[in-house]
């Protein structure tokens, strides 16, 4: 039985991503839409983190290395109750904490990101901290496929395997597009799986928009005891809004009034296909 509740949440999140980007007249639409199902499953199914336990040293950690997809993170954190959703109306406005990349000024954000290639090393440090402190929490980090050429990722990949960090799970939002063009044409990082495997990681592939497949994949953690985990989530940039899907211009394109209305309409239609007896 598919998880209709989370499927419905994803639609709600997609609407909010588009809504707040439209109001801010700024944002990274395509990448937020490609990773939102992953964040949905992490925050609503996998991780033990919420506004009540956020100051607890035992909480699970999420570090978003691809910081530019901050709108996805903000709408999920708002939904989790870390802050009132209406705060997002100040997105990218003067003196707002809700800027175009994650910042710890926003409750629920673990680490300030935005410059690429930072999430994995920091997550490795968190995972080592957990091991040293004999804590059972886990750390999840979301990487963009476009940021994999940053050498710091590979430095951290070595360290993660060296210390057998099976409490670390990196997820690649494999949407295959970056600002200049197709990732395979900008700097080909394929195949990602065998590269990480050769570094000593265990790698699994999953459809990054299939809620139930994502749940099953995370349920299998750690894939192999004593090895760090990589999930390559096959995704579509701009997913859920047909005219944005797989279109380079929606990397940081902002919808105009008509596009905004069309996007909401399309998401409303999608919503009607999900059984209605699930309260958000």
């Amino acid at each position, binding site marked *: 039985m598919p998880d209709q509740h989370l499927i419905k949440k994803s639609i709600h999140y997609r609407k909010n991503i588009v809504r707040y980007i439209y109001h801010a007249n700024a944002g990274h639409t395509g990448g937020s839409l490609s990773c939102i199902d992953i964040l949905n499953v992490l925050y609503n199914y996998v991780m033990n983190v919420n506004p009540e336990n956020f100051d607890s040293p035992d909480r699970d950690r999420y570090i978003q290395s691809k910081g530019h997809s901050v709108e996805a993170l903000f709408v999920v954190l708002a939904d989790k109750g870390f802050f009132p959703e209406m705060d997002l109306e100040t997105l990218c406005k003067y003196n707002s904490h809700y800027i175009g990349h994650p910042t710890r000024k926003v409750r629920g954000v673990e680490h300030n990101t*935005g410059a690429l290639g*930072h999430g994995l090393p*920091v997550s*490795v440090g968190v995972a080592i901290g957990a091991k*040293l*402190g004999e804590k059972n929490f886990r750390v999840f980090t979301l990487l963009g496929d476009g940021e994999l050429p940053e050498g710091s990722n590979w430095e*951290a990949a070595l360290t993660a395997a060296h210390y057998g960090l099976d409490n670390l799970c990196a997820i690649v939002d494999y949407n295959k597009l970056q600002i200049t063009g197709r990732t395979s044409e900008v700097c080909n990082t394929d195949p990602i799986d065998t590269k990480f495997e050769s570094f000593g990681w265990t790698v699994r592939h999953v459809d990054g928009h299939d809620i139930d497949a994502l749940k099953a994949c995370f349920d299998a953690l750690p894939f192999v005891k004593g090895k760090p985990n990589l999930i390559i989530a096959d995704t579509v940039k701009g997913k859920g809004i047909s005219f944005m899907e797989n279109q380079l211009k929606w990397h940081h394109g902002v919808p105009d009034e008509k596009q905004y209305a069309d996007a909401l309409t399309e998401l409303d239609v999608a919503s009607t296909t999900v059984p209605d007896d699930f309260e958000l």
Partner: protein
Amino acid sequence: MSTIIEHGSNVGTSGKANLEVFSYTLQELASNDKSIIVVTSDSRGSGKLTPFGQKYPKQIVEIGIAEQNLVGVAAGLASTGKKVFAVSPACFLTARALEQIKNDVAYSDNAVKLIGISAGVSYGALGTTHHSLHDYAVMRAINNMIIVAPADNFETAHAIIKAAECHHPVYLRFGKKPMPHLKNETENDFQFGKARVIRRGGDVTFIGTGETVYPSLQAAEKLSDQNIEAMVISMHTVKPLDYELLASVAANGKPIVTVEEHMIFGGLGEACASFLLQNGYTNPFKIVGIPDEYTVTGSQNEIFAHYGMTPDGLAGTAVKLLQRSGVNKL
């Protein structure tokens, strides 16, 4: 801590390298505090941390030669509540890993203690790749960063203790040359941002930091033979600067000479000059450091000598400044 008091008690006698005091102090701290974690980039030997690693194998994390990763991992570790000392040669730490320092440490406010070893031109003839003559400048330009260059063993030990207690990022840099005890300390009063007056005198003031304080003190002693009394200040904290002391020193209008093992751009001298000029002090002023050129080759001592950072060189600079300002006591 008994060792700290010892370090200040034998003025004029030869002390240890600040690097060794760092290692020793850290071992003492770690003996009572399991949250102290050292992170190294194949630098435990050059950081004198081999004994630390032997004594506390669970409190040292080896990263290998990967400075960006070193700092990123250190930030993550610090976020889990560890008191993290990230140790690497200052030249690599503050250049290669600068973005990690800016974002993962300073901006994210992870209280990593960044330890730049063999700083300045300590590596001497190993050349420019191994010199850190840019680190004050770049670290000063980053918000939320305390910058400390201890002059002697007393300052080093205290700086390490204060850094361990500090809930915010700290950058500490020092060399590996044995440093003499500069001043008898009856009280263990050491604070970041509070400069230490090493010698009093009313004719001219030397403001040094790190390993340049000692030649400044020697210069002051030479000047004393010529009936010129120099004040010597150890501005161990380059940021935040001790503005109060700076203002009180400048109030007499006498010449000020700053001395740093750093390029003359963006370091201690320009920090002092900026404060003084913007607050109406127009004392005769000279920044002594490494000029904007291909740095001369040689040992640390030879490089210091080449650029006038010796007792004679600094005394000469002070005399010239006094002459230029019409205060010729000769």
